């Protein structure tokens, strides 16, 4: 829908065309190659024995019986890992506390030595001829545990006397960080006409990509080379972290391949213990080793998401202008620091607390806390959904308290396009955005004016109808390396791209970005087809193999197109420049007289021209090249490091109906209007938005990761207990976008669209739910708004339903 005709693509496979996906044929015919589909000659199978306890001391592990079991090849424990001087899993981001001290960074061993700190912690690996034999033998490993008391939530973990997750983390505190101007914020509150306060919990989620994680390690004795196939969003990052930090394998001896990957949503960014275990052990046993997670294992070993406990206060003047925002958040890190965990509740969360508004003073304090739970890291949106949820919930409540229409209050506080570029008080500079435009378009689409009539009609049927919206902004296209580095990132955040013309004019593009649903093989090829004027069939996109692709940072934070696409664009510039030189030589003209348009190099003002295919052939058959001036070949590489984040933004609106008898919330309508800058493939963009919205709805209404507070057992460890959104839980959506505010600082003008739906979705739905319940005096409900929770809130309401 919605693409304005002004942006109609010039060719059927160029920028702006809804090109059907080139990856679909293999997936639709069962010919995808996911990690578990790969089998290596002489392969063995690994099963990881995991801790059944949240917290326990290990007095000893007896593997003798397991070693005797049929088919068993080897059993290794933390002692073997330690004896080989295998290091712990590193953390990629260092946060400093308010007082300047570095965060507490406890070791994270691939196999534990003498203590387990969460259910699912890796205790031993059993390697056998078959997966079943490994699993059977695991039952024979005798682990002598002393169970210890556990703590699962941040507020409990910070209490005096709480069980300690790591001895070195006093009070279970990882860091105590802040951002913003405290004095200015306090001053803003001092002069406020009204203060809205809100306590909220951003519920813990389990990412649940449908493909469970898997890894195959292989060591080649002849060459000394290692290969790891793994379900990763960023194979180079894994090669660096595992090779350099954990196993001490130099990069030229380690190849990491992430083949087809069945969804990631953040959970496949991180370097996980199993990758290191199979790679290390493959050398010990001299055979390839495959490990595949069962879903119940995924629940206790994939990094979780969200899990914030927050107190927020918004100061407003008498006209409803926001004066200040004060936020205190406890962020649960789980038992260890996952790869990017420390950055999520800090630089990807607090920096977004201005939202779309001109709030002049903001002060956020964030304590990161260790608990006896699975590590928490980025999950679709990562920090930004938490920020959006907080802002949009408190703005909604402020509007209700002040009796100002929720759209009007937002309008009064939007940063206008004329104020761009805009420096927020929390360290970001928004380059562009037309916030009111998205709001207006969304209000039209949902017929906001007609809502009171629909509410009255629902009431006549005994139903409670509510409407809620969220105007979100996110920082994507992560990020300038220099900024990230200054903020504690231990990595650069550029992307690589290589564009290789072949002699007969076809092109292979190598990208450091990785596709696991995002459609790179189609959209990146569109960029190339568009730029060079060649058929899309002549373009191949290669990703996911460190032996082929230049060092790249991978896919997360909606960065693939903004950073990875820009790298390809930059490499294409180099190709054109080089090709101009060749064309000038071939056409016997000055290089400055050559113009490149629609796939042709022409001598300006003449009809003498060459296609890029002619130039490519000549580049590889340089029979009469002036070789001291002109190098053969047409193969260029670029690294693109962005100047700034990109800032996708938009408004989502949901209309819900609640059955007060059952507490069931149904979403009746859902619209989203987004600004993603320039759009390459509308079909793909809309698909990304749909998927994100359902993850937002899932968080708002269904999904919740629950630990038993006493024992630390995961109570929602399967699809029987963890409620995944299914087709009949959600409606169809109306999704539109505008392209009037292209990103100002990357060559493509693109912003990124992968996370938007999930960033606004939960706030949108919860605002609608609270709106439906507002007449009962209900001001807030924590997610997920399950039937039980809603029904109970209605029963406990200060204004009884009947009295209405």
């Amino acid at each position, binding site marked *: 829908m919605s693409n304005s005709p002004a942006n109609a693509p010039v060719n059927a496979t160029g920028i702006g065309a809804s090109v*059907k996906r080139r990856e*679909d044929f293999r997936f639709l015919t*069962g*010919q995808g190659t996911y990690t578990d589909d790969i089998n290596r000659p002489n392969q063995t199978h690994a099963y990881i024995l995991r801790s059944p306890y949240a917290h326990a001391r290990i007095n000893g592990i007896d593997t003798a019986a397991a070693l005797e079991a049929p088919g068993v090849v080897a059993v290794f424990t933390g002692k073997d890992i330690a004896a080989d001087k295998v290091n712990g899993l590193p953390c990629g981001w260092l946060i400093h506390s308010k007082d300047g001290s570095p965060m507490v960074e406890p070791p994270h061993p691939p196999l534990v030595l003498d203590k387990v700190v969460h259910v699912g912690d890796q205790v031993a690996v059993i390697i056998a001829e078959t997966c079943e034999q490994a699993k059977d033998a695991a039952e024979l490993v005798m682990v002598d545990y002393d169970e210890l008391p556990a703590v699962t939530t941040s507020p409990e973990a910070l209490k005096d006397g709480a069980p300690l997750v790591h001895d070195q983390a006093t009070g279970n505190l990882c860091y105590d960080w802040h951002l913003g101007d405290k004095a200015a914020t306090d001053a803003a509150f001092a002069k406020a006409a009204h203060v809205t306060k809100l306590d909220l919990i951003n519920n813990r989620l389990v990412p649940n990509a449908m*493909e469970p994680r898997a890894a195959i390690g292989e060591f080649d004795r002849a060459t000394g080379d290692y290969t790891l196939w793994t379900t990763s969003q960023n194979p180079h990052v894994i090669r660096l972290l595992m090779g350099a930090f954990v196993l001490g394998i130099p990069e030229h001896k380690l190849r990491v391949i992430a083949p087809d990957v069945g*969804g990631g949503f953040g959970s496949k960014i991180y370097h996980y213990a199993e990758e290191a275990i199979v790679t290390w052990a493959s050398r010990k046993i001299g055979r390839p080793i495959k490990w595949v997670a*069962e*879903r*119940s294992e995924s629940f206790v070993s994939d990094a979780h998401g969200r899990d914030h406990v927050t107190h927020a206060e918004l100061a407003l003047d008498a006209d409803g202008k926001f004066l200040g925002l004060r936020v205190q958040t406890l962020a649960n890190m789980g038992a260890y620091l996952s790869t990017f965990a420390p950055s999520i509740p800090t630089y990807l969360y607090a920096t977004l607390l201005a939202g779309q508004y001109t709030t002049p003073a903001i002060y956020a304090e964030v304590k990161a806390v260790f608990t006896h739970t699975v590590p928490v890291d980025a999950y679709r949106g990562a920090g930004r959904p938490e920020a959006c949820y907080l802002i949009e919930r408190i703005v909604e409540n402020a509007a209700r308290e002040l009796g100002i229409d929720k759209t009007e209050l937002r309008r009064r506080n939007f940063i206008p396009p004329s104020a761009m570029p805009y420096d927020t008080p929390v360290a970001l500079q928004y380059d562009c955005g037309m916030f009111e435009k998205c709001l207006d378009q969304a209000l039209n689409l949902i017929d906001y004016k007609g809502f009171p009539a629909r509410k009255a009609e629902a009431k006549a049927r005994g139903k409670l109808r509510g409407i809620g919206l969220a105007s979100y902004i996110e920082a994507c296209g992560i990020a300038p390396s220099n900024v990230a580095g200054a903020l504690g990132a231990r990595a650069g955040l550029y992307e690589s791209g290589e564009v290789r013309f072949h002699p007969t004019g076809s092109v292979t593009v190598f990208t450091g970005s990785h596709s696991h649903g995002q459609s790179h093989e189609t959209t990146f090829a569109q960029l190339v087809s568009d730029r060079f004027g060649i058929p899309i069939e002549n373009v191949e996109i290669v990703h996911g193999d460190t032996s082929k692709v230049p060092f790249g940072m991978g896919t997360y934070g909606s960065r693939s197109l903004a950073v990875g696409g820009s790298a390809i664009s930059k490499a294409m510039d180099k190709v054109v420049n080089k090709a101009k030189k060749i064309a000038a030589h071939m056409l016997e003209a000055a290089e400055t007289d050559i113009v490149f348009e629609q796939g042709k190099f022409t001598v300006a003002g003449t009809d003498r021209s060459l296609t890029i295919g002619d130039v490519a052939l000549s580049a590889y058959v340089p029979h009469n090249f002036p070789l001291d001036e002109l190098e053969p070949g047409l193969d260029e590489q670029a690294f693109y490091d962005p100047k700034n984040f990109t800032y996708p933004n938009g408004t989502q609106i949901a209309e819900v109906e609640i059955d007060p008898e059952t507490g069931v919330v149904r979403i009746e309508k859902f619209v989203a209007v987004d600004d993603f800058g320039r759009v390459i493939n509308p079909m793909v963009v809309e698909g990304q938005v749909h998927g994100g919205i359902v993850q937002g709805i899932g968080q708002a209404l269904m999904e919740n990761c629950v630990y038993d507070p006493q024992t630390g057992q995961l109570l929602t460890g399967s699809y029987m207990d963890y409620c995944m959104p299914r087709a009949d839980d959600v409606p*169809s959506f109306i999704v539109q976008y505008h392209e009037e505010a292209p990103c100002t600082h990357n060559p493509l003008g693109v912003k990124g669209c992968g996370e938007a739906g999930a960033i606004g979705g939960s706030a949108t739905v919860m605002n609608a739910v609270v709106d439906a319940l507002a007449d009962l005096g209900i001001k807030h409900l924590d997610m997920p708004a399950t039937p039980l929770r809603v029904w109970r809130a209605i029963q406990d309401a200060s204004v009884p339903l009947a009295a209405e």
Partner: protein
Amino acid sequence: MTSVSLKVNGKSVTREVEGRTLLVQLLRDHLGLTGTHVGCDTSQCGACVVHVDGESIKSCTMLAVQANGLEVTTIEGLAAADGTLHPMQAAFREHHGLQCGYCTPGMVMSAVDLAKSHEHLDEKTVREGLEGNICRCTGYHNIVKAVLAGAEAMRSQPAQAAAE
């Protein structure tokens, strides 16, 4: 070990399996038909759906030995021999009903059965009919569109739809 003989995608096969071997394991590990996926261990996700004697079934809920003598069609057996997509596969491509592709084989096999077993499909019946298949990527919007279009195409191109 028990011997099990069945027809898979039109070919007769016989394999020795353990009593506990699941149909999905027979397909993936013994026959190399890796198009059928495993997404869970509680028979909840539907990534493993195949057709057994023409009806969709979660192949992780069936023992291989139970398939003895039966006819199984997997996603690999759905398109025509010349590679022409089944109308349901084509509709998924046309309507962008897949992203990472992991749920897709099960989703398509379920959709084909759904289309065959309903005279008339609308959004509601499709959503309810796919309740046993989880997709984490698409938000279902385009899957629903694809299934409605695919069912329609199956009715208008019965020859191709019957190819399986």
